[in-house]
């Protein structure tokens, strides 16, 4: 299961961005995790190594405002801005979770002018696995 990464030389390719800041990454995967309380946008390469990330919380929103679509939009814009100069040609978007930030982040990504190849929904669905927490009584 998983990606067959060769063991030799994996340590050398471990981190992106620490030494070579101007490394060109042609294809990029944008992960958007949109929960009810927050939205996290992570930009990784195809192998899954994180290039940069941003979230509604780090963009200055706090509390209930983190879950709003506008916060998701700013998070996406922030994340893409840091990698805009690295020569991305294609991007894939993987959206996870229910939440209001899904569409807003997608719109912001589209508006930023990146070429998108796929948009995928990768919300994890258990096949009746762990028992979820009890119902809230409000």
């Amino acid at each position, binding site marked *: 299961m998983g990606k067959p990464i060769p063991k030799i030389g994996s340590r050398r390719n471990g981190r992106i961005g620490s030494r070579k800041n101007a490394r060109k990454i042609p294809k990029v995967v944008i992960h958007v995790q949109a929960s009810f309380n927050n939205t996290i946008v992570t930009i990784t390469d195809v192998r899954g190594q994180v290039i940069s990330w941003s979230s509604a919380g780090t963009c200055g929103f706090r509390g209930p405002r983190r879950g709003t679509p506008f916060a998701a939009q700013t998070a996406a814009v922030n994340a893409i801005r840091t990698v805009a100069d690295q020569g991305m040609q294609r991007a894939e978007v993987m959206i996870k979770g229910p939440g209001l930030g899904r569409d807003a982040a997608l719109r912001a990504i589209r508006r930023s002018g990146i070429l998108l190849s796929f*948009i*995928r929904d990768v*919300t994890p669905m258990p096949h009746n696995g762990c028992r979820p927490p009890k119902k809230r009584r409000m």
Partner: protein
Amino acid sequence: MAVSFLSSFFSTLLPSKSACPCPTPTCLHCPPSQLRLQQSSSWTSDLTESSLSFPSLHARDYSPILYPALACSNILFFKSAYNVQIIVIENEPEDRLVDRFRKEVIRAGVFQECRKRRFFENQREKRKRKSREAAKKNRRRPRSRAPRQKRDEAPEKKKFDDEKDDNWGLPEVDLPYC
């Protein structure tokens, strides 16, 4: 010989599929089939090679014949399982793209699943939810079908019965010794 049959079947299947017109980049619910069409011809050669490597034919080897799309689902390109996939057309307006994605996600039932699994639901809640869903489903479709069938069959039967039941006249039979 059986293996060669399988591989020849594959080779007849695959070129015909690739000869199909380019699929409209609609949303992909079932991953393998549409993706396969877009790959280059190197994929088809890989497939036939891998099919030739099966030494014996079990029942599951007939599944490539029955469900050709699933045959290459484990050789395929994507690394993670996804619920919905959309291929983005160039120069598509963002509104249309977002709407398309949203529609596909709703069709896949992602939001419903998430809501269902957010908190634990006991048996009573589960039964309630199921009956609500069934009521919703029944509200839409079978109302149009079931009464129509009943109406069509009933008058036909009536006609037939009338003719049969009418025994007042003498049967028309050739009497012997007349």
